[in-house]
């Protein structure tokens, strides 16, 4: 049995705004969410890359203590986005708690802020009182599935829990696995998404791999620069995205506002190197996605590329897009606005794509001033286009050689 799966709600917290109105306005204005890296008492002073995709505005949280006590910053983001998606969906409390709704939500490694606090206690421990101060709460805040289970607790969700933790494909897998759970009849609905909080240790990892942008430290808004000749690496970011996926007939029957349909998902692995992008692996992912969606590649109007703005990654992705989709679809790199929001990128970029589909425009890849001649085989977007989009692909690739593609379609 294969059932249709639709999206009935979406909300995101991003470096360019919170919710559809702010995010859409920023996309149309070409606004960057990249600002100088915040100083911390750990590694920031050693990092060469001085930029970060930052959620630089207050968020009004209204969580009671019973919920707050097990939440680190990443869970705050996740629960807020989830709350907004749940409210927007209009699903009843009875349904939410019925077991027919599951959660598919992740982050790259729980809360690094809380983990840092735990390490501080260990390294500064003088006697066993330090050891005793590590309690269940710290684990619940920092564990890898902290976003998913804080959501289940806050809203009383009793269906299945999936918590992908595959770095930069966490969010796209969360949506993909939620889609599969509904498609194959395991759940009627899945609340899907991902989040990541501000974390300089993540920047340090990429910085040490020479993968971070450093040439625009004094002009943060000019980086990252996907597919641009002057691109010099990724910019780490933070944020969250949450989407409500439902079985089509169920959503239709209850009169839900269907904002998009998930028509396909594929995920594979390069089967080798855990860091370097792999043309064969990525090309195969895109082919599998099109096959899964039962469409022809020519039906895809828009590709939201992973496009981190690393030297090799963008070239290989452009080659893969060219090989599978040809020159037909418009190609954009949304990380040019928000940086690489790590686990959240798949969810946030899917939501941004839906917003563009809904409003009939395509946001350009900002900072794409001179296209790298090795990336010219696809149709880049360098200015806002008033352009209806029927079918879009969202691509994400992760450390560990994991590749994903989601295919979504605008409802008739």
């Amino acid at each position, binding site marked *: 049995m294969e059932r249709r799966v639709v999206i009935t709600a979406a909300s995101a917290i991003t470096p360019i705004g919170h919710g559809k109105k702010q995010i859409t306005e920023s996309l149309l204005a070409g606004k960057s969410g990249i600002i100088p890296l915040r100083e911390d008492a750990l590694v920031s002073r050693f990092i060469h890359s001085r930029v970060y995709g930052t959620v630089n505005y207050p968020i009004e949280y209204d969580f009671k*203590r*019973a919920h707050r*006590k*097990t939440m680190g910053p990443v869970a705050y983001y996740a629960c807020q986005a989830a709350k907004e998606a749940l409210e927007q969906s209009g699903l009843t409390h009875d349904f939410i708690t019925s077991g027919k709704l599951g959660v598919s939500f992740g982050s790259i490694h729980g809360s690094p802020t809380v983990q840092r606090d735990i390490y501080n206690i260990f390294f500064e421990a003088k006697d066993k009182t330090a050891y*005793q*101060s590590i*309690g*269940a*709460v710290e684990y*619940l805040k920092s564990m890898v599935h902290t976003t998913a289970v804080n959501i289940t607790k806050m809203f009383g969700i009793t269906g299945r829990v999936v918590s992908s933790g595959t770095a930069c494909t966490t969010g796209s897998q969360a949506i993909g696995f939620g889609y599969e759970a509904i498609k194959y009849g395991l759940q009627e609905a899945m609340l899907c998404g991902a989040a990541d909080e501000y974390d300089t240790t993540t920047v340090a990892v990429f910085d040490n791999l020479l993968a971070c942008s450093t040439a625009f430290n004094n002009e943060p808004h000019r980086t990252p620069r996907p597919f641009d000749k002057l691109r010099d690496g990724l910019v780490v970011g933070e944020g969250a995205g949450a989407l409500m996926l439902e079985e089509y007939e169920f959503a239709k029957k209850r009169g839900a506002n269907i904002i998009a349909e998930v028509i396909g998902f594929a995920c594979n692995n390069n089967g080798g190197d855990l860091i370097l992008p792999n043309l064969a692996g990525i090309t195969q992912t895109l082919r599998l996605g099109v096959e899964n969606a039962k469409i022809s590649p020519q039906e895809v109007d828009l590709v939201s590329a992973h496009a981190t703005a690393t030297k090799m990654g963008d070239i290989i992705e452009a080659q893969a897009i060219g090989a599978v989709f040809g020159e037909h679809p418009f190609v954009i790199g949304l990380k040019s606005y928000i940086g690489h929001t790590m686990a959240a990128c798949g969810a946030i970029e899917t939501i941004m794509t839906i917003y563009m589909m809904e409003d009939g425009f395509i946001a350009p890849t900002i900072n794409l001033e001179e296209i790298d001649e090795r990336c010219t085989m696809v149709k880049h977007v360098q200015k806002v286009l008033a352009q209806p989009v029927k079918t879009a692909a969202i691509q994400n690739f992760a450390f560990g050689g994991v590749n994903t593609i989601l295919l979504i379609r605008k409802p008739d």
Partner: protein
Amino acid sequence: MTRQEIEQEIKEIFRREFEIENPGLDDDLREKYEFDSIDAIELLLEIERMLGSELTQEEKKQAMDIRTINQICDYIERIIQARKTAA
């Protein structure tokens, strides 16, 4: 410590640490205030600070069935008495 002092101290801990204002002495803390096992462990740490001595593993396990403020006060009185007897 008198029973009244213990009660006052516990209510202050509940206000400060658990954002629970003036709970009834026989209110079921779990039912009424969502006071769960995580809170119970935090409360035991507060009780250790209050008494100025560590609770044994056995004493901590005995606290896991406690449901009300009155039961918490009973528990603390028993611990104080046990410490006096041991001394």
